[in-house]
C-alpha cells in the first residue's frame, strides 16, 4: 500500500478564490450568441443552430446545479448536438437545408459543407475556437489520434475541393 500523498494546502498565500459563478439567466444571455455562432458554423443553418443551442440550454436547466463547468458543458453539448443533427441529415433528406445566403458563400465554404460531421467539428474546434489537439479531443470525446487523423483528412478534402 502506498502512503498518502501531499495534502492540498489551499490556504497558502497567492491562491485566490474564484469569482462567483454565473447564474443560469446570466449564462443564457452571456453565452447564447457565441454558441449560436459556433453551431451555425457546424450545421450551416442559423435556425437549426438556434434550435440546437436552445435544446442544450433546456437540457442544462435540469442539471445546472450538478454541472461544475457549465460553459464547457454547453460548448461540448452544442458541438455534439450539431454533429447529431448532421448525422440525422444524412439519413433524412427532409432535414437537408438550403445553404446560407450568397454573402457567406465561397469556394472554401462550399468545401467545408462537403466535410463529414466529425471532420467539420474538428475543423471548427481547431481553427475557429483555436483549441489544441488535446482540448479538441476532450471536447469531442475523441482520442488525440482520431483528432489528428480527422484533421489531416479534412485538410486533404478541403485542398482537393479547392484545387481546380
Amino acid at each position, binding site marked *: *500500500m*502506498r*502512503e*498518502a*500523498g*501531499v*495534502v*492540498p494546502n*489551499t*490556504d497558502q498565500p*497567492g*491562491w*485566490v*478564490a*474564484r469569482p462567483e459563478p454565473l447564474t443560469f*439567466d446570466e449564462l*443564457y*444571455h452571456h453565452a*447564447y*450568441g457565441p454558441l*449560436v*455562432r459556433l453551431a*451555425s*458554423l457546424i450545421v450551416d443553418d*442559423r435556425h437549426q443552430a*438556434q434550435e440546437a443551442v*436552445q*435544446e442544450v*440550454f*433546456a437540457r442544462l*436547466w*435540469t*442539471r445546472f446545479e*450538478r*454541472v*461544475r*463547468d457549465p*460553459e*464547457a*458543458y454547453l460548448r*461540448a453539448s452544442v458541438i455534439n448536438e450539431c454533429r447529431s443533427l448532421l448525422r440525422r441529415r444524412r439519413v433524412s433528406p427532409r432535414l437537408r437545408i438550403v445553404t*446560407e445566403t450568397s454573402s*457567406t458563400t*465561397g469556394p*472554401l*465554404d462550399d468545401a*467545408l459543407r462537403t466535410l463529414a460531421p466529425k471532420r467539420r467539428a474538428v*475543423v471548427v474546434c481547431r*481553427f*475557429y475556437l*483555436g483549441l*489544441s489537439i*488535446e*482540448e479538441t479531443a*476532450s471536447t469531442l*470525446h475523441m*482520442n488525440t489520434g482520431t483528432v489528428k487523423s480527422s484533421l489531416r483528412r479534412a*485538410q486533404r478534402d*478541403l*485542398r482537393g475541393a479547392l484545387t481546380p
Partner: protein
Amino acid sequence: MTDDLEEQLSQRLHARAAAVTPSPPARSDLDRRIRHRQRRRIAVTGSVAAVALAAGAATALSLRDGGGNGELVSAAHPDEPSAAIILAPTTSLAMPATTAPRAAAVVDATTVPPPPSTAPTTISPTSTTVASSVATTPVVTTAPVATTTVVIAPPPTTTIPTTPPRVRPTACDSPERAAVALPDTATVEHLLVGNWLACDRPSFFGTDDAGLAIGADGHWAKLARTGAGDLVEMDGRDNRGSWKVLDTSSMNGPGHFQINLTSLTGGTRMSSVVLIAPAKLVLNNMGVSGGTYVPANS
C-alpha cells in the same frame, strides 16, 4: 500550403461567424421548451412503466401455462387435463421469471402420491435461486380428491460474502469555503499526487472503489479496503493506468485544468479538476460522472 489553408480556414470561419448576430430569445420561450422536455420525460417514463407492468403480467400468466406449450391453462377450462395440478401463482409477481421454474409450478398428479386428506405435499424447487417461498398455495384440480396443498420449500440459506462496512470519511462533511484558483499545470500535478478517499459511492468511475491513488510517477489506481481496513491499490487493467494534467484555460478561462486518467486498456476518463478549500478534490466529466475526494490521511 498547409499553413495557407489553415490561415484561410481560420479567417473564413471567423468571418462567417461574425455574420451571425443572434440575440437570445425571450426566457419564456426557453421555459416552454423546458416544460416540453419535462412532459416528454414523464411520457417516456410512463411508457416504460407500462411496458414493465405488461411484462410482469405476461410473466404471471405464463406461470399458469401448462408446461410452457404456449397455451394458457385456466382452472375453469372444461378441457383441462384431469390429472393436472395447477398452482395459482399468488406471489408470482414477486418472483423473477428467470428464477421461477415452470416445471415446479405444474406438477403431474401421477408423480404425486395420492394425498391422504389435507396433508401438504412438499416439492423441492429445481433451482436454489427461488427468491421467495410460496406457502400454502391453493390448488385447483379436477381429480376426485378433497384438497391438496403444495408447498415449495424455501431455498437453503446462502451466505453472502461480506465486505468491510463502508465508512464515509469525516472530511467529506467539513464545510466548504471556496474553489481555489489553480495557477499552473505543475502546481496542479503537485497537489493531485497522493491517495484520495471517495466521499460517495459509486465513485467517479461509477464503481464501488474506496478511492483513487495518484502517483508522482505518473500512474493512478483505484483504491480498495482490505478486510482489515487497509487501503490497497486495485489490480486489473481497468483499475489502473497513467494520468496527465492538461491546461484548458484557453478554452474555459484562467485556472481551468483537466485530468486524463488513461487505463491500461487504453480508455481515457477525462475530468475537470476543482479543488475546494479545505482540501477536497472534485472530479467532473461534463456532468456525466463525478466524484468528491478527500485526502486519505484526513
